[in-house]
């Protein structure tokens, strides 16, 4: 209860946004296409927040975030499809299941991996991401429903503005509270200087694992929401490029800045979709040529992220 009271202002703001959006949707002012994109923004923000916890706050460079997003997606979709849970009321349970599965896998893989430093961790997570994608590609050997490389079809469409909104806002507030707690403090210490943190008695291994698992849990929940929105999953949706997407959002938003991640998610998805509408088809190619350039430029100009408080040395 205390937790809800302290977040009063935020909840009010969130409720306000919800009302506006609901009006826009119901009155048909925005097309279903825009509606879907809006919901997708929330999902992406949730997943990116997970990466923000792992990387922005705790400084662990993970290039395999999309893998956990995928694990959550497939888990939830599989449960719903095989157990025939077609109603919205089953959603919280399957979302949780998706998130927990992702978090568990993260925990297991984290134990060996997280002792690595930046670059190596990056490659290790990248490799893990590839492994997971290969697993999805061959998932039909385990169960025909999972579809393998043909994709997982016929997932119940349970995600809506309400569900996404409630879940995302709730988890964001929880995250914010964790960040401002002891744990968040430890995480930031570890990011700043791991050796020093260890020397003052912080159990860095446990803290890092916790951050990693929690971040991946968020990704898993987001993935589950995604599965029930697009009703179709394909292994290629959860590859390295998707991980880069999340990374870009975290960087754009300023690592270690939750509000920043929200804005960055909105801008990023809006940008990508906006380009689709605005650019004539022959120049569409150039999207992915300019995005990395943007990334490089950003690194040179503001190595700590666009909206972060710290400015880089340039």
């Amino acid at each position, binding site marked *: 209860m205390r937790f809800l009271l302290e977040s009063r202002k935020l909840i009010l703001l969130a409720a306000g946004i919800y009302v506006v959006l609901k009006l826009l949707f119901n009155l048909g002012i925005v097309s279903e296409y825009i509606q879907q994109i809006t919901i997708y923004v929330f999902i992406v923000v949730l997943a990116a927040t997970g990466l923000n916890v792992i990387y922005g706050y705790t400084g662990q460079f993970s290039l395999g975030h999309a893998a956990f997003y995928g694990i959550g997606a497939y888990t939830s979709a599989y449960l719903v499809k095989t157990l025939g849970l077609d109603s919205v009321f089953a959603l919280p349970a399957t979302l949780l299941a998706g998130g927990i599965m992702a978090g568990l896998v993260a925990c297991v893989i984290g134990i060996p991996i997280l002792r690595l430093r930046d670059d190596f961790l990056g490659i290790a997570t990248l490799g893990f991401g590839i*492994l997971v994608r290969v697993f999805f590609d061959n998932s039909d050997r385990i169960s025909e429903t999972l579809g393998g490389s043909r994709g997982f079809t016929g997932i119940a469409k349970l995600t809506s503005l309400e569900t996404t909104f409630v879940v995302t806002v709730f988890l964001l507030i929880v995250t914010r509270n964790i960040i401002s707690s002891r744990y968040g403090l430890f995480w930031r210490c570890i990011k700043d200087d791991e050796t020093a943190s260890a020397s003052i008695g912080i159990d860095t291994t446990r803290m890092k694992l916790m951050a990693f698992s929690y971040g991946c849990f968020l990704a898993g929940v987001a993935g589950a929401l995604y599965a029930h929105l697009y009703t179709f999953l394909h292994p290629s949706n959860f590859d390295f490029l998707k991980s*880069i997407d999340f990374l870009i959002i975290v960087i754009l938003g300023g690592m270690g800045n939750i509000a920043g991640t929200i804005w960055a998610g909105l801008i990023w998805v809006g940008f990508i979709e906006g380009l689709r509408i605005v650019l004539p088809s022959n120049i569409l190619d150039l999207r992915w040529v300019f995005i990395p350039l943007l*990334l490089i430029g950003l690194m040179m100009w503001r190595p700590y992220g666009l909206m972060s408080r710290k400015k880089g040395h340039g």
Partner: protein
Amino acid sequence: MEHASYIISQVINGLQLGAVYALIALGYTMVYGILRLINFAHGDIFMLGAFFAYFLISRFGMPIYLVFFATMAMCALAGYLMEKLAYKPLRNAPKISLLITAVGVSLFLEYFCSLKAVFTPDYIGFPRPFEVKTYDLSLGGIDFSFTNVQILIFAVTSFTLALLYLIIYRTKQGTAMRAVSHDQETAALMGINIDHTVSLTFMVGAALAGVGGILYGIAYPQINVFMGIMPGIKSFIAAVLGGIGIIHGAVVGGLIVGVSEVIVSAFLSSTYRDGVIFVILLIVLLVKPSGLFGKRIDKV
């Protein structure tokens, strides 16, 4: 029965692949030794090498030995530019920024080259400048065969390695490279020009990757702008396996990775070939993070 010869054929297949990985791994290991940076875009230089060679052979009809030298030069230039434009400005920035920049450079190279006006995203047949000939040999009752392509790859790789050793252990610049990777500050105090040494390291690493690209194109004659991604990752893991920063480690690592990949393909299923690499990485990290030839350090 034919079992032994089957195994030997597969091992030879693996060594062929491994030789190419070794060449690429060398570039990774050298750059890492000097800058403590994983040049994510290294795999893309490998791709550039293959494409440069393709153009030289098909558009200009250059004879193969010239192609090697020309491609090495062009790749060295690419490596030099990459370092000067993208990495040098960030030399004092937080490590992560460098990493992300490297990822950015990699993506940029891939997508820029995939434009229609550049290399196009198509799969292009690599013009092999000679016909493949198979030789059969029988040793100790076991027959196996190998091709002239394999001979070429082993020969070129050995030659290149010998050249590399010459440079690193017998020239002043090579000594400078070793010094800088050992201890940058002291090397600078001794009067070594860090910038030049770094550039040189990049150039040599890039040239090696370029050679790898040509050999790969000859062996598996199809090139594509995204071809550098997987070999890049695998070669990096090979470098880690051998001990990152250690030259002979990269070579041995590369060969081991190549052979493992092929053996798993042959005896299990090709679908697991990428998975094996990751398992190897995990094992290395858990058992001896400093790699086969690495010295014990408290943290990788």
